[in-house]
């Protein structure tokens, strides 16, 4: 089930945790264009955090064109947001498949999410 998972004691600000997780779900296709996100006050109430925190996350997602906010409709995943496209403009399934394979291999090896992200950051800097 699509959800956000925030740690109030983490060094990363809560709004950034929400932003990153929503962006990630959109990037792998778990959230599709047109999917409605909860209202900011509802998500804030569920998480027990300030409404402004959720609103900042949604604002940053909108600035990155991942979501759009409309009156009466609320916040929805933007058209065109979704799994990475290839050079020709079509959806390239290879990066997503590779990412999933990486996660499976990492979990088998007992690595946690932070370790996996460190691996990816390292690869981005060295490849």
């Amino acid at each position, binding site marked *: 089930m699509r959800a956000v998972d925030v*740690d109030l004691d983490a060094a990363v600000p809560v709004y950034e945790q929400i932003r990153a997780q929503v962006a990630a779900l959109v990037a792998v296709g778990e*959230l599709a264009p047109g999917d*409605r996100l*909860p209202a900011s006050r509802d998500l804030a109430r*569920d998480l027990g955090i300030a409404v402004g925190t959720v609103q900042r996350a949604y604002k940053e997602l909108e600035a990155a064109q991942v979501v759009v906010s409309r009156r009466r409709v609320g916040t929805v995943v933007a058209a065109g947001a979704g799994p990475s496209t290839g050079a020709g403009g079509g959806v390239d399934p290879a990066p997503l498949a590779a990412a999933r394979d990486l996660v499976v291999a990492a979990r088998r090896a007992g690595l946690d999410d932070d370790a996996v992200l460190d691996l990816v950051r390292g690869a981005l800097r060295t490849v």
Partner: protein
Amino acid sequence: MSLVALALLLVVVAVPTALVTAVLWLTGRTHAPDPGSSTGLVRKNAQRHETTVFLAAAGVGAIVAVVLLAAPVSDGDTSPRLGGAAPFAGAAAFAAVRAVGELTWPRPRASRRLAPLARRGVRSVGGNRLTLLLATAVVATLSVVAFGFTASTDGTTIDAPAVPGTTSTSGPYPGWPYGVPVLVALGLALLATAGALRLVARRRPLDGLTVAQDDALRRTSAARLLGGVQLGVGGGIAALDLFTGLVLHGAGWPLPAAASATVGLVVGVASVTAFVTSLAARDTRPTPLAPAPVGAV
């Protein structure tokens, strides 16, 4: 409807509701789970809390219904008859106590919080059971209005088909002295149900449960709430329609009698079925992500 009867109706609903409310509030607040508890233990505690709330609500609803059923009736006048409203008032009390029960879930204390990325509302949480309840309420209203307009001038009997040279009436017939309290109690039941369902939808996810587990618990709460109210409202109107069918048959109105009895039977069977299935409800389907209206993207 006299002010005294209305006041009695409200007091009978409010007093036991308030007493049980206080007990639920005190016991619920003192049993917040330790954030370090295992998922299995948290889930067990949550199910226990849900069952406690359900039993408390059912107890209050039953008490209210029994008290109203035992309310004295004065023959020969048009003062309100509260007995017919008993199941509806019981349903209102049941929903009111359930609403309070929703406010006694422990607040999240853990630093790690989970929240579903799905919109939740009364309709998404209520589902088909809410549709059934609303349809039953419409049938109940139409029945009461029909009985009110077809009763004799005293409101408690019905005239037999006209035969030259004779006049006769049959009763008791649920005219307006019965119908108005039913409509008032039905309105209270629907308002209380809407409020309780809104609280079910808005409840914060519980610490220690996965999003899917919390969603299943939420759907169980909604199912039991709607099942209990359905039993009161549907059972009440089923009994009223079946009883009226007998009176109409005795008064010499066979077709209306058959129609009333058929409606009563169908509503009664559907309501009892809905209640029984709600007790076993373990809906594990996730709340669907609400699609945007056409043209929103």
